[in-house]
């Protein structure tokens, strides 16, 4: 029903008023939008500029391949081999259920586990999710056969550590693993690792991680919001890790391990002239390749719980009472302080009473009249009880420390133990008791509270050279880069110098030659026709059963070039079990014809141990 005069025309002013107001409001709203635009695009421009840059540039880290490890002659010990990893790119999968079923059939991927991993992806659908590592060749073959029906699945190559000789030198080489939280911490020693890298966890791999690890690089890629890679913006090539050349002599090491295999014990061979370790074996051991593949927690728990301690490097982590080998220290200390005349003889009748307490010699019926020379050669306990009592605990303690006992040698392998050299104050502090007479008696033959690692005993033997210098033992010889250029050469370092008279040194070294080379000497089984060997046996009483069998020697006796230390846990008599092993290794090192074949020696050792 149209009116004659339209309301609009009649009430134009009201319309004008309200219309203008509405327009004013629109103007206000647009002003707010403009202010906001100025705020975002002009005032906060630089901030958003930065954010937009970060948004679409992603850094894909690439860990550098670790350096190789060689022995002193260039024998390859550790390298990298390609390892294949199964990944799924969620954005390219068409039928997830089917894919997972196939992967289960072919590679044994657990579908639930895979689903859980894939659920964590978030929005980055085009980033590969690793599901299975270290694929076997058969699996790779099967997967590539069916590649067309397995869309979204890729196989990625990654280098993995390969310990070429398996268990050989396992404890020295150590192993690598993914970076842990603690290692990412600021307090970590050395170059800080990146979260995606693998770092050395034990042995040389850990000690020289900085050289081996190299410098990781990466590629900057432009990605879209799904994580799809569009193009490479920049690339920084990773710098390969540097190669290590160890002081280890592969052949000597191999011989040591072959001799030890199946027993519990260790061998240390070093050059007394500079501290280079030529062989360091410890049994039982483990295969570091297990760690390279990625060790399961079950297997790890098994290794840790093993009562034979396969993870322990006995050469520097085993603390044992040194036994008769310690008589070298007692002899030196005695000659320097308590015993003025080494040619004075005492009667050994197999037992002696001190303060109404009987102390026995290991030889039941005694050694008869014994002077220092004979005491060392035949390892007479009673002579050393007397010598020790004359020398007193303080001097024994002092000379022990001078020989490097009771403190870490500083070898370049992590985890070294310090051993223990007791003293009167130590005992008071530890046990709240005074130092007894009997403590000194026990200490003078290397028993009682004394503890030393086989490496320390080897260093002790190494001290018996012309100058009395003890070099810091080490396994690193050189570091070289990928082109073979020398990066670092290990400079021998002096740990300490033995301050003793030439006379003392002469007497002790003569006696040690006698241990091996005289008819009654305990170390006769290490005797060589063409090489003068000097050494000392040890049969060390311990609370774990049979005595430990030990033998330490150096050769040639006139100017030692090699120290060999052999130790068998609960092996029995040192002269019978350990000395033949040392002899074989000396023959090996000096290129002599073997008196007995390796298997013969092992057979002999087995028999001795059964007898003992």
């Amino acid at each position, binding site marked *: 029903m149209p009116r004659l005069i339209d309301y609009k025309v009649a009430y134009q002013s009201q319309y004008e008023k309200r219309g203008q107001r509405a327009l004013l409001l*629109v103007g206000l709203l*647009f002003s707010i939008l403009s202010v*906001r635009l100025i705020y*975002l695009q002009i005032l906060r*421009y630089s901030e958003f500029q930065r954010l*937009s840059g970060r948004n679409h540039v992603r850094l894909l880290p690439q860990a550098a391949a670790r350096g190789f490890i060689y022995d002193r002659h260039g024998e390859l010990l550790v390298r990298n081999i390609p390892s294949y990893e199964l990944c799924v790119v969620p954005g390219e999968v068409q039928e997830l259920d089917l894919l997972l079923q196939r992967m289960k059939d072919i590679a044994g991927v657990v579908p639930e586990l895979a689903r859980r991993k894939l659920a964590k992806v978030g929005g980055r659908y085009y980033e590969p999710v690793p599901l299975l590592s270290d694929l076997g060749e058969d699996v790779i073959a099967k997967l590539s056969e069916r590649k067309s029906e397995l869309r979204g699945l890729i196989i990625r190559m990654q280098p993995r550590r390969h310990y070429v000789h398996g268990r050989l030198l396992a404890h020295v080489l150590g192993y690598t693993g993914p970076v842990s939280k603690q290692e990412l911490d600021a307090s970590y020693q050395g170059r800080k690792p990146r979260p995606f890298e693998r770092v050395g966890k034990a042995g040389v791999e850990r000690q020289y991680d900085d050289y081996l690890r190299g410098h990781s690089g990466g590629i900057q890629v432009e990605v879209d*919001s799904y994580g799809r890679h569009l193009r490479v913006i920049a690339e920084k090539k990773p710098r390969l890790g540097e190669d290590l050349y160890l002081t280890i002599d592969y052949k000597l090491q191999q011989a040591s391990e072959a001799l030890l295999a199946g027993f519990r014990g260790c061998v240390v061979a070093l050059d007394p002239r500079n501290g280079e370790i030529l062989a360091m074996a410890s049994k039982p051991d483990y295969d570091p390749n297990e760690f390279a593949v990625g060790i399961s927690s079950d297997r790890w728990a098994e290794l840790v719980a093993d009562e034979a301690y396969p993870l322990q490097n006995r050469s520097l982590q085993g603390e044992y009472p040194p036994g008769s080998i310690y008589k070298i220290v007692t002899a030196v200390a005695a000659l320097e302080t308590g015993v003025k005349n080494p040619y004075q003889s005492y009667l050994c009748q197999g037992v002696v009473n001190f303060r109404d307490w009987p102390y026995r010699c290991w030889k039941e019926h005694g050694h008869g009249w014994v002077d220092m020379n004979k005491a060392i050669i035949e390892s007479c306990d009673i002579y050393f009880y007397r010598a020790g009592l004359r020398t007193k605990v303080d001097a024994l303690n002092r000379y022990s420390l001078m020989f490097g006992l009771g403190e870490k040698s500083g070898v370049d392998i992590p985890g070294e133990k310090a051993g223990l050299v007791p003293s009167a104050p130590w005992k008071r502090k530890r046990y709240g008791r005074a130092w007894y007479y009997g403590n000194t008696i026990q200490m003078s033959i290397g028993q009682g509270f004394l503890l030393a690692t086989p490496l320390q005993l080897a260093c002790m033997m190494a001290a018996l050279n012309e100058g009395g210098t003890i070099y810091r033992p080490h396994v690193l010889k050189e570091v070289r880069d990928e082109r073979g250029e020398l990066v670092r050469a290990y400079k021998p370092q002096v740990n300490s110098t033995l301050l003793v008279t030439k006379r003392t040194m002469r007497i002790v070294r003569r006696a040690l030659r006698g241990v091996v080379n005289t008819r009654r000497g305990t170390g006769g089984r290490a005797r060589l026709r063409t090489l003068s060997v000097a050494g000392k046996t040890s049969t060390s009483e311990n609370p774990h059963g049979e005595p430990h069998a030990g033998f330490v020697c150096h050769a040639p006796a006139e100017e030692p070039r090699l120290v060999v230390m052999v130790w068998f846990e609960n092996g029995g008599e040192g002269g019978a079990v350990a000395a033949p092993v040392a002899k074989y290794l000396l023959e090996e090192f000096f290129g002599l014809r073997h008196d007995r074949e390796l298997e013969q020696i092992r057979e002999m050792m087995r028999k001795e141990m059964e007898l003992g």
Partner: protein
Amino acid sequence: MNVHSATRVYRGLDYGLLAAILFLCICGVANIYSAGHSIAGMGGLYQRQLVWLAISLVFFFLLLTVDFSIFSELAYKIYAFSISLQILVLIFGAAVSGSRRWFSFFGVMYFQPSELAKLALVLAVAKCISEGRDETTLAPPFYKPLLLACLLTPLVYLQPDLGTSLLFLPATLVMLYVAGTKWRRMSRLVMFFLLLVSPLWFGLKDYQRDRLRVFFDPEYDPLGAGYNIIQSKIAVGSGGFLGKGWLAGSQTQLSFIPEHHTDFIFAVVGEEWGFIGCALILCLYMYIITKGVRIALRARKETEALFAFGLVAIFTFQVVINIGMTLGILPVTGLTLPFLSHGGSSLLISFIGFALLLRIDWSTRGRRKR
């Protein structure tokens, strides 16, 4: 209606307004091209937009020749038709990612009836107010226009098209306001509107509720619902004063901005054309709105005036809400930016609406001359 009258309409047309609209459309196509060209399957979007633009222009020039009184006569029928379409789309509509908002024609063309509803409502309310005034007090009717809006709101809301459904009542409100409704009644209407909206909160889909929630705290879920706001702010902000240049915006090209060809098209403008581009677009919108209001104020018939006001109101709401959402000062509700966003129905209905507006303008000026 004959060829003669048609040429007269074309000759007397306000080409300034049409030029502004066409310029916006060209900008839209350029930005849709930029948003889509680096993504597989979206490269052809700008071509579709061009096709729709052509169709819209045909409708535009055809409907210019039709006098507004004819639409005014048909207003209730169009409204009823629109209501039935809303119901039909809920039943027969093409489901696209969980919503039924579109009619599909052979799977090629899609039409969104909620767009038509905007036009139908404004027509019906304009007619309703102008013809339903109280005989003695001349007060505009209150409950009838309200009812018209309230019928549409839930139907569109169910599709679900939250943004559009929330436009109906405010648009009616604006029309009632300019028609001279007393403030007291208006405030009562606002109360009613709020009462109507509050239960909607519970009926909101999770993603819609999240969108509203993250508006107040975008970092609440930076990868989920807050993602849109943050990414669009980064895009606009990183554009700076001059912009990164056409096809050079990394946020746009790498699809960090979701829905960058439709709801978030303004973020593409902000990133690639910078403050200059944004300011230009804002000026164009302001120009169109001012023109629209002037046409409304000049109109000689109340129906025409109210229709013009309603149309401009809806237009303004869409522009302000969409840009405000892109700039992170209003919640994400899913409204298109008229003439700029990709979307055929939106474009077509906008052109039809402005055809009616320009026809009103033409006839007003013609009447004055006579």
